[in-house]
């Protein structure tokens, strides 16, 4: 009974961190599928989401909803600027150069954040109070519900976008064959820019909804970004359900591992899973082969 209760609790908290990883991972997958780039700076947009929200909330004293919207917009602008200034000029660059460029971008963004906001950890109030909700054996915070809701809505929107809008279909076309996409009149460079915009917006959302639970500081992006990448790898770089399952599996295993074995090694669990997946099934657990990537 007691063990059951604990495990239920681990599952629930794993599910909510998993949802965050999924959101970040989908951002990774969108850029990767549109450009072939792994954006090592992805985690920084997660950080920017949280930090911009803190800034608009506490420094400018804006209401929560306005702050959140402005924070997403601001992070998206940084993402777009990053693509224009650092990625677009790098035509025909090798994967190693692109890894280095995005790492450089990640360090730069983190550094500027540190200069602007300092090294302190900042808290954001939860969106709807701290009254725990009893859910069978376990309890859950309203913020967890926010996380589930936002992730679900974002994933559904992205699914709809990629499958039912001409712009989403055009992005899939670019991912599959950018030259043929150009020949039907799709502006490939605009699509790449757009993929950075979407993925930085998604990353910042993840950073915003998790901030009330974990606090935020200039350097939270590194770990969250890497975990998001693990989720995307497990999901076979899909921008849909594969990565969501990847994130959830990762979140639950981490939370169970931390609870049952040792919390210190919690972060190592994600990377051990990453290595195992890369060694055994580099195409991911849920990849259907090479035809459908987006």
């Amino acid at each position: 009974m007691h063990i059951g209760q604990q495990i239920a609790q681990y599952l629930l908290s794993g599910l909510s961190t998993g949802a965050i990883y999924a959101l970040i991972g989908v951002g990774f997958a969108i850029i990767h599928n549109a450009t072939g780039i792994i954006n090592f700076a992805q985690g920084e947009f997660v950080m920017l989401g949280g930090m911009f929200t803190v800034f608009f909330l506490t420094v400018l004293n804006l209401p929560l909803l306005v702050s959140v919207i402005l924070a997403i917009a601001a992070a998206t602008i940084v993402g777009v600027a990053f693509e224009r200034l650092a990625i677009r000029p790098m035509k025909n660059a090798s994967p190693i150069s692109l890894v280095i460029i995005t790492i450089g971008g990640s360090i730069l963004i983190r550094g500027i954040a540190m200069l602007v906001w300092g090294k302190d950890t900042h808290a954001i109030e939860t969106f709807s109070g701290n009254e725990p909700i009893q859910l069978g054996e376990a309890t859950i915070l309203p913020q967890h519900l926010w996380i589930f809701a936002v992730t679900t809505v974002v994933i559904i929107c992205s699914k709809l976008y990629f499958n039912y809008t001409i712009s989403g279909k055009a992005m899939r076309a670019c991912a599959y064959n950018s030259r043929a996409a150009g020949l039907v009149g799709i502006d490939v460079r605009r699509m790449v820019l757009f993929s950075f915009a979407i993925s930085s917006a998604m990353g910042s959302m993840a950073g915003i909804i998790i901030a009330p639970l974990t606090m935020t500081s200039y350097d939270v992006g590194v770990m969250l970004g890497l975990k998001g990448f693990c989720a995307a790898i497990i999901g076979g770089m899909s921008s849909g359900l594969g990565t969501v399952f990847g994130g959830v599996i990762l979140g639950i295993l981490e939370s169970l591992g931390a609870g049952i074995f040792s919390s210190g090694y919690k972060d190592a669990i994600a990377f051990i899973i990453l290595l195992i997946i890369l060694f055994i099934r580099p195409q991911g657990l849920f990849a259907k082969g090479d035809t459908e990537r987006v």
Partner: protein
Amino acid sequence: MLKIKNINTFYGKVHALKNISIHLKQGEIVTLIGANGAGKTTILNSISAVTPPATGQIHFDDQDIAGLGPDRIVKLGICQVPEGRQVFKPLSVEDNLELGAYLRYRGREGRSAIRKDLDDMYALFPRLHERRKQAAGTLSGGEQQMLAMGRALMARPRLLLLDEPSMGLAPLVVQEIFRVIEQLRSERGTTVLLVEQNAKAALKMADRGYVLETGKVVLEGVASELLENKEVQRAYLGKDKKEIWER
């Protein structure tokens, strides 16, 4: 309608097109013939701005189109059906066709006009209608060729660039494809620039032709005369054999 004057195109250090000049009049079907590597595909890609020429001019309706990106070329009404079809295999047949009209979706045009063109494509290629929900990658080679042509036609091009539409297809399917090309010209007045390995079939259908060798135009003229030309017969028509297929 299209006037290409003295273009030179390079692939890295390879001089692929040397002072090429060709022109097309409204409503013409013109074919480019020549061996592999003669520069036929490069001419199409130079027009489509996939491999922009280093020097020379390309005028479309008296407008200089050099320096425009591939998407702008499509917007002006020039569409290429690339070699090897290059359909978007993971997407459905209908998605592929819709993407052909990508710029029209982005423009001010109503959805109903696009919808109507989609139905026209299905009338032109009934097989595509049967398979409209299937992923394009599951189609046969001939069906993919039809899809690639349908995708290009969805942009309502005035000039259609066709690169090896018959490659690797069964004779019956080739006939079907060629029938559609003629139908396009007679019904829509579409101008066609056709690159073909099957020189005989291409010259039979075309009004005029250009013969290319190693990046240069070596012969040009009315298609029927080229068909009778001894040199052309020997080099590209394989007079002894029924037809010459280079691949």
